[in-house]
């Protein structure tokens, strides 16, 4: 039971962090719950589909189907996160400022919500398919199905707790600073995911340039420890990054910054928020 709990929690943990961040980012947007719930649900369904076709997926691209699939969905998430940041640079103050009529906010907010719902769906899909395979294997094997199911359920609850804590931690930041914080968080999240996508492409031998390991900090903080894993998800920490992973990481940050500058609201002065 404990083994099942640990395995499920380990997989759900990352998705929990991401959903928590997205909930905090969208907290003022109307109807965000439907969008995010839709993302989670689609992710769960997708995870089941991926689990069913795991064998077939693996055999694609000379046995590298899994790696390429992971790289692909990570890249989708990176595009969505970056687009969200750029979009918020232009429209963020309108949404956060509650200056607009609610109807207008819904229309504008849903564009950005769609991108974030995709991110949530992708996070759940990636982690979820492994949980599904694991639980299915146990249930099919017939050994102590009840205990494992309970362990899996508790693991899932703990994952939801991570999500809640992330959300509550972020929304406790004063409103004026929250926007800058979440913008930075999302940029780092996107950069980290892009570096992860690069790692998958390296494993598939699709990316072979600059594959030298730049440093090894596994003695200091292993990326399979709980803290290392949290940092891996949040800012893309890896204890043995290749030059390519670092390049991709920095390129995404640079692109985000440039796009936010180019498309951001041209004459945006931060309006002093009313005293709280």
């Amino acid at each position, binding site marked *: 039971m404990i*083994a099942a709990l640990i*395995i499920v929690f380990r997989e759900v943990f990352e998705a929990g962090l991401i959903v928590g961040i997205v909930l905090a980012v969208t907290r003022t947007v109307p109807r965000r719950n439907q969008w995010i719930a839709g993302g989670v649900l689609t992710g769960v369904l997708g995870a089941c589909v991926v*689990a069913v076709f*795991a*064998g077939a997926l*693996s*055999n694609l691209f*000379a*046995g*590298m189907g*899994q*790696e390429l699939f992971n790289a692909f969905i990570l890249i989708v998430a990176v595009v969505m996160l970056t687009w969200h940041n750029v979009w918020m640079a232009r429209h963020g103050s309108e949404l956060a400022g509650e200056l607009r009529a609610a109807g207008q906010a819904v229309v504008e907010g849903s564009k950005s919500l769609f991108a974030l719902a995709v991110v949530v769906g992708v996070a759940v899909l990636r982690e979820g*398919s*492994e949980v599904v*395979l*694991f639980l*299915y*294997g*146990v249930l*099919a*094997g017939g050994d102590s199905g009840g205990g494992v199911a309970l362990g899996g359920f508790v693991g899932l609850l703990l994952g939801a707790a991570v999500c809640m804590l992330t959300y509550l931690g972020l929304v406790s930041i004063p409103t004026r600073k929250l*926007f*800058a914080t979440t*913008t*930075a968080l999302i*940029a780092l999240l996107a950069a980290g995911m892009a570096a992860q996508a690069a*790692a998958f492409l*390296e*494993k*598939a*031998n699709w990316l*072979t*340039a*600059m*594959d*030298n*390991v*730049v440093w090894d900090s*596994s003695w200091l903080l*292993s990326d*399979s420890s709980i803290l290392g894993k949290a940092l891996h998800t949040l800012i893309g920490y890896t204890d*043995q990054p290749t*030059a390519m992973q*670092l*390049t991709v990481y*920095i390129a995404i*940050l*640079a692109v985000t*910054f440039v796009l*936010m*500058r180019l498309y951001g609201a041209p004459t945006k002065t*931060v309006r002093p928020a009313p005293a709280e």
Partner: protein
Amino acid sequence: MSFSRTLPKLTMFAAMALVSIAAAGAASAQSATEIQLSYKDKKFDPAEVSAPANTPIVIKLKNLDGKAMEFESKTLKVEKVVAGSSDATINVRAQKPGRYEFFDEYNEKVARGALVVK
């Protein structure tokens, strides 16, 4: 917004650091060492395999069990789901000499093996 002020500096600094790293690190393409492994009843066969140092390694894993397993090694940075009764190819980058443990994540305690790089 402090984010927009610190980011370009950070980016510039990191970009310069990278250029020097990329220039220094010359990746040489070598032919990979192939290793055959099979997995059945929570056991790897053979439980210990070896490979030469500083050359890429390709692990060909046959999962003879009916259910899926997840081949994982923290030190080799490998994590791969292998469906029941199927084969998988796992690319491992060139390693320094040492002992690298791997396991089936779904049965981490018992299903273990090691790759010894010499």
